[in-house]
């Protein structure tokens, strides 16, 4: 379950689990999270939680609500977002980052059916000073895993090819895209795929297969090494890694 960590001047005051659909924050006592401070409006903001996602909304407060330094009206909360209301800070920690369940479990597709989400017990108000602070995890907890990883890994040095013969001899081409095709469509085409652990060349079309260091490849992908010489459709080129 996602939670908020309320703090002021770097001092953790309380940990609030987001265990009901709508949690209100404000100065007045009827709020789920009461912050008794004049900079906070009577009804200042609300957080709506739908299963694993939480949305923060400013309820037209006098002094506004900031997320990571920006004034917001409505905001989709992400792990480690810092919500500021006056001098108070609320840090949002999503369940995933806290390592509640194994990734394989919560990413399994499930059917959502009406009535599946049951109302949960209310949260205690914030002025309960006996709140436990020991459980607050460090901000350097695991990063959220739900987002898509970057398409290409940064660990591999950028590869490039240089043409060795033909009209464009000497010309260099950096392999920055995931896929780079080489050759003449309809005659002979090969593709170089950029993968997290290196560059791989594969035959795409044509009767002839690419030749690497004098050896003809088969239909399988072949990993390229620094200074390999590739021959496609009569053109020779050298593959190399840029430092």
């Amino acid at each position, binding site marked *: 379950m996602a939670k908020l960590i309320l703090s002021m001047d770097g001092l953790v005051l309380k940990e609030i689990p987001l265990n009901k659909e709508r949690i209100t924050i404000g100065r007045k006592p009827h709020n789920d999270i009461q912050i008794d401070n004049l900079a906070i409006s009577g009804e200042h903001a609300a957080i709506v939680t739908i299963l694993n996602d939480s949305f923060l909304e400013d309820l037209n407060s006098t002094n506004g609500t900031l997320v990571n330094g920006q004034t917001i009206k409505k905001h989709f909360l992400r792990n480690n977002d810092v919500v500021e209301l006056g001098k108070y800070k609320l840090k949002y920690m999503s369940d995933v980052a806290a390592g509640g369940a194994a990734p394989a479990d919560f990413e*399994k597709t499930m059917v959502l059916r009406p009535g599946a989400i049951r109302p949960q017990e209310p949260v205690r108000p914030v002025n309960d000073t006996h709140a436990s602070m020991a459980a607050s995890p460090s901000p350097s907890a695991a990063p959220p895993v739900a987002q898509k990883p970057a398409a290409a890994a940064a660990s591999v040095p950028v590869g490039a090819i240089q043409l060795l013969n033909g009209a464009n001899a000497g010309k260099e081409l950096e392999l920055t895209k995931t896929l780079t095709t080489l050759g003449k469509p309809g005659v002979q085409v090969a593709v170089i795929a950029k993968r997290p652990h290196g560059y791989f060349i594969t035959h795409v079309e044509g009767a002839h297969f690419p030749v690497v260091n004098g050896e003809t490849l088969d239909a399988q992908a072949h990993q390229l090494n620094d200074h390999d010489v590739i021959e496609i459709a009569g053109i020779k080129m050298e593959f190399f890694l840029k430092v």
Partner: protein
Amino acid sequence: MNLAEALEIVTRTDPGMVRSHNEDAVYGDAALGLAILADGMGGYNAGEVASGMATTLLANNFSGIVPTCVPQALDVNGQSIAHLHMADQIGAANSAIYNAAQSQPQYAGMGTTLVFAWFYDNRLSLAHVGDSRLYRLRQGAFQQLTKDHSLLQEQLDSGMITAEEARFSQNKNLVTRALGVDPLVEADINDYDVLPGDIYLLCSDGLNDMVEDDEIGLTLQTLAANLGLAAEQLVQMANDNGGRDNVSVILVKVRGDYAAPRSWWQKLLAWLK
């Protein structure tokens, strides 16, 4: 051109890098003009049972229906014959999975998504339930034709969340419709015109959750000449990015025109062939 010549279909399915077993099921037959993909869910191995039932039942029943019906015709009420058959058979598959889930304790709670494409007469009838998708690459434009039946899609539609924010949502895996979870299911069924050169991609969320749409489109465009390699590349990209779910893709390339014979002598000619 008959369907077997006009269409090239390749299927690939892979358990991914995390899961021990594959709950996806795929089926493709160019001569029948059918491509079916299902992503099962449910405890133990019930997900595989549900997706396997969906693809097998539909494939078997349609291999009987396709040669004997005129899908582009309309019935007496003006409804498309293709749509009627699809709705009927999806309903039957739903009942079969639902009944199995109700009667066998080990299958309780199982269900499956479905994306089902039927190619005939220069067009495509497309049915889908859940969050498995169909995309089309046409003249360089890569577009998603299905709309997920998922919580996230509903939030996008209601303006609660933007497409940019949706990429970070933790609620990606919640579907609002599936085969086998209720006695009745409603599939979205739509028709699309098909042009030579089009490439269609049917995929499970294991692909589109792990690989950006732009990258998928670029891969199809780059490797259009070698469909098998394109399918393998897509699976590999999902796995390189983490492969947290089963990955399945079906690619359908339209090589030419496949209009149904119109006049009596064309039909005779087609029959003689």
